[in-house]
Structures are given as structure tokens and as C-alpha cells.
């Protein structure tokens, strides 16, 4: 019974939502709209669940002085601080001068941007070490990557002799082999998603219920 009810619900809701694509009746849409709203509420609740999970996982480690407890403490303080100033600011929290906006502009933005900017350095290092013409396939990848990299920026267009042709060749790489490979991946993934969806709707796949 404990697993039968969720399986029946999954079957009915799944089938109903698929039906929306084929039944353009307003009455049908009223129900799918309601189900979507429930889904959005559940997604918001998942945010809350994540918050509690974060505290549940990290707080004991701080209290027991486990490895890296200092970082976890900073994280928990940041979490609590941001929550408090966010609630305190209410709908005006994004106005200039508000504490939440200040935290966002002067703490979150620099940290987030710095983390991403570091990629430029690590990518340069990784490209130097990993991009080696060890065999034919690697050489093809290497040559294609260099052509796309140089042709993507104005410098490529300005090169003497090849500057005119380089962007055209890059576009060919992007439009023909790139699209062919990506379409194959998309179609494969889409078929996989359809089959997984069907398995869930038909109750064959039950891992979401906590059972194999």
C-alpha cells in the first residue's frame, strides 16, 4: 500500500500531463495549471528542505570541531546573516543602501565573479598540459580547437592571407560536424528521457520512491 498509492498517483499525473500536448481544451488546461502550481510549491519547499539539510549536515561538525569546521562556521554565519537581512529588507531589499543589496554587491558578486574568473588561468594550464597530438583523433580535435579559438575573436579575421577564410571555416566546423554530433547526442538523450519517463509512469522505475 505504501508504494502502491505513489505509483498510482505517478501514473495518473504523468499520463495527464502528457495528455496536455494532445488535448487543447481549456478545462484540461485548468487542471494542468493547478498541477504546475503544486509543482512550483514543491520546488519552493525543496529550497527550504535544502536549507534545513545544510544546517543539519554542517552544524554538528562545527559543534564537534570536526575537520574544516571553521569554513562550515563561516558558511552557517553567512547563511543566517543573509537570511536575516533578506527578510529585514522585505520588498525593498534590492534598493540602493539596503543591507541585502550591499551584501550582494560587495560580498557575493566579487566572490562569484572571482571563482569564475579563475577558470581562465586553470583552462590555460590544463590546455597546455592536456592538448597533445598523441594520435590522429587528438590531432583533429587540436586543429579544430585552434581554428575555432582564433576565428572566434577579431584577431583571427585580421590575420593576413587566411583572415578572410578562417571565420568561414570556423562556421563550417560549428554548423556541420558540431551540429551533427550534438543532434545525435540530443536525440539519444531525448529518447533516453522518454524511456525513463515511461518507466516512471508505468512503475517500472521506482528509485524515486526510495526502492530499487
Amino acid at each position, binding site marked *: 500500500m505504501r508504494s502502491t498509492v505513489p505509483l498510482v498517483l505517478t501514473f495518473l499525473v504523468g499520463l495527464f500531463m502528457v495528455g496536455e*500536448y494532445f488535448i487543447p481544451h481549456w478545462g484540461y*488546461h485548468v487542471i*494542468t*495549471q493547478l498541477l*504546475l*502550481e503544486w*509543482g*512550483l510549491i514543491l*520546488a*519552493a519547499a*525543496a*529550497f527550504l528542505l535544502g536549507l534545513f539539510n545544510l544546517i543539519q549536515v554542517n552544524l554538528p561538525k562545527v559543534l564537534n570541531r570536526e575537520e574544516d569546521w571553521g569554513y562550515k562556521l563561516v558558511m552557517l554565519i553567512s547563511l543566517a546573516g543573509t537570511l536575516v537581512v533578506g527578510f529585514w529588507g522585505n*520588498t525593498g531589499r*534590492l534598493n*540602493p543602501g539596503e543591507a*541585502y*543589496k550591499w551584501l*550582494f*554587491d560587495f560580498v*557575493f*558578486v566579487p566572490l*562569484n*565573479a572571482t*571563482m*569564475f574568473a579563475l577558470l*581562465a*588561468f586553470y*583552462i*590555460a*594550464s590544463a*590546455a*597546455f*598540459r592536456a*592538448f*597533445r*597530438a598523441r594520435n590522429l583523433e587528438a590531432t583533429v580535435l*587540436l586543429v579544430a*580547437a*585552434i581554428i575555432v*579559438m*582564433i576565428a*572566434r*575573436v*577579431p*584577431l583571427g*579575421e*585580421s590575420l593576413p592571407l587566411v583572415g578572410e577564410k578562417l*571565420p568561414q571555416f570556423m*562556421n563550417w566546423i*560549428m*554548423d556541420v560536424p*558540431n*551540429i551533427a554530433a*550534438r*543532434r545525435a547526442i*540530443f536525440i539519444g538523450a531525448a529518447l533516453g528521457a522518454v524511456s525513463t519517463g515511461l518507466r516512471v509512469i508505468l512503475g517500472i522505475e521506482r528509485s524515486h520512491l526510495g526502492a530499487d
Partner: protein
Amino acid sequence: MKLDTLVKFQHMDRRWIFLGMGLAILLPMLFPVNLPFKVDERVQSLYDAVEEIPAGSTVFISADFDPASRPELEPFFRANLHHLLRKDVKFVSATLWPSAPPLVLPIFEELTAEYGKEYGKDWAFLGFKDGKELAIKAIGENIPETFPQDIKGNKVEDLEVMRGFKQAKDFAMIINVSAGFPGTREYVLQIQGQYDLSIASATTAVSGPDYIPFYKAGQLNGLSAGMPGSAQYEKLVFPDGPPDGVRLLATQSVNVLNVGHLFIIVLIVLGNVAFLVTRQAEEQA
């Protein structure tokens, strides 16, 4: 050159590479060389699609980016807003990324004030909604139900700019400024086909190749990828250069991309020369 030197070069301390990359970023900022560039067909198509929107129409902007992707996407975002506002196109915006509202709201406020547009009448920002694909599906079905209140706490269905606009297909175009998931791919998969929507996308350079098949299939009516795409869009929006007080952020930044890309290519080429020479020597030994 000695073989030892080539082997050492291949295993050099990565801090030298970091230093080189740092210089490759810094020097073009200090001494910019503004090389000319052409506009890609996909960016031109995006510009043309926006150009064809009649004055007085309303578009939906899904601003799905964060501070990390800001350098690549904010220039497009700003140029696109200039483009829309000077054509007297109204807009309603929302985001599926929690860190986007504090980033995009000041830009909306700055540019709409510049063009004398009024909040609620000419534009509105509905804020963030979690739910990812579900939220996109809900935007396709019913926007006032999905976003009952805007970012300022007003009832969305009472906003003048929302009068007559209930779902995504009611808008002249969906413009998605997307840094990843959820973003352009999810808009295309969830609602583009079902409602036959006109969607234009500006995305990061790394996501660009992923979305080219959508553009080629006609599911996107334009695609701007990364900073070069943003620079090209700026060139189209401001063909005679920027007006006073406007900075073409991407056009300035492609100088850094030029040298950065060149630095990585030189590294790869030198690394391969060293690799091939040492491998040949090892095979002969």
C-alpha cells in the same frame, strides 16, 4: 635545444602559465588595439528579429544569469535594452536564477529612466521563480498565476503593461539571456515547440555551440554567444559608436579575448612542438 629543456618546458611550473595569462589579460586593458570584426549571421538574425518588432509591442525577457557570467552577458543585456527601448518596445521580465534580481533590476531602472519609461506601464520585473523547467512550463501557461506579485510587491495582473498578456505566446518575442541551466535549452524543450514561440537567445560562449542546432532548426530566431556575440550586437545597435554616457563593454573587452586566446594557442603549439620532438628523440634512442 637540449632535450632536457624541452622536457622541463612540458612540465613547467603552472605559476608561469598563470603569470602569462595574467599579463595577457592586463596588457590589452592598458594598451587596447581595437581590431575590426564582422557580425556573425546568428547575431545579425537576432538583431533583425528585434528590429522587426513593431513599436508599442511587448516582449518577455528571461534574465537568467549571475555575477559569474555577467561580463559575457551584461553587455548584450544592456545593448538589447537600448535597442528595445529606443524602438518603444515594452517589456516584462522575470528570472529563473536566484542571484539575478539584484543584478538586473538596477540596469532596468537605469536604462528605463534614461528613455523616460514608466514602471508598470512600459516595463515590469516580476522577479525570481524557482521550479526550473516547471517554472518555464508555467510561464508558457499562465504568467500572473506563476508570478502573482512583481518585485515591488504589486499585483501582476493589475500592471498596465501586463494587460492582455497572460502567457508566453501573447508576447511578440521571448528574449532569453541565459548562462546555463535553466535557460535557453529548457525554454526550447518545454514551451517553444508547444506554443510555436519566437525565441532569441544570448548565451555564454561555452553554451553557444549547444544551441546552434536550435537556431538551425528555426527554434531560435537569433543567437548571440559569449563576449564576441555581445560585441557584435553592440556594433549593430550602435553602428556610429556609442552615444554619450554609454560604454560598449563587450567591444572593449574583445581586446582581452584576442590576446588571451592567442596566449593559449601559442602555449598549445609550443607544448606540442616540445612533445613531438621529445617523442621522436625517445623513439630513436
